[in-house]
């Protein structure tokens, strides 16, 4: 049973556009939601995270929007750059328990 779902599986946008990556979850006890960025040949690295007490978290061009009622969140990447091309993983956990990972969204930014 997949508890964290990501869509789309892959996404292509033009440089300068806003990329929107979606994530949904099933367990209402999840309260920590990190997004990890992975470049080819490398391990994932934490990009940005949000806790369920907030509905928005911003870090430069990256913003998480969180809807607790619908159990959905999204990662918005504004002014997309070719260097943002990577796979993005949404994950979720309850307090100190292990992370549950989505299957990832492969983002391609066309110059």
């Amino acid at each position, binding site marked *: 049973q997949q508890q964290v779902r990501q869509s789309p*599986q892959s996404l292509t946008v033009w440089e300068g556009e806003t990329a929107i990556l979606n994530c949904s979850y099933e367990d209402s006890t999840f309260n*920590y939601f*990190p997004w*990890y960025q992975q470049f080819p*040949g*490398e*391990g*994932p*690295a*934490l990009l940005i*995270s949000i806790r369920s007490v907030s509905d928005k978290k911003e870090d430069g061009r990256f913003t998480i929007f969180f809807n607790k009622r619908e159990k959905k969140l999204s990662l918005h990447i504004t002014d997309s750059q070719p260097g943002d091309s990577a796979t993005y*993983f949404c994950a979720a*956990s309850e*307090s*100190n*328990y*292990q*992370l549950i*990972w*989505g*299957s*990832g969204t492969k983002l391609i930014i066309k110059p």
Partner: protein
Amino acid sequence: DMKVTQMPRYLIKRMGENVLLECGQDMSHETMYWYRQDPGLGLQLIYISYDVDSNSEGDIPKGYRVSRKKREHFSLILDSAKTNQTSVYFCASSLGTPGNTLYFGEGSRLIVV
């Protein structure tokens, strides 16, 4: 320097051979992990270690075992490798609980023929 180092980075083994993947971290993190990553499946947790000799099974432990004798070092062992264990394996570490940031190594690509 916050770093997780994995060795070897690439490995080809024959079915039935033993495999040892090693991981080291320089951050004195208590918690360490072994994941495997396959296309379309994201990251699957194999084992988690909360400290020296304190290891727990993850979601897919079958066919794997681990060893942690020093806080900074965590090994993944495949006894008699199978072709379906061909994958990319990632080691990670975190300070304290899994709710904190995970720091990943660069991965070990294993091919079992």
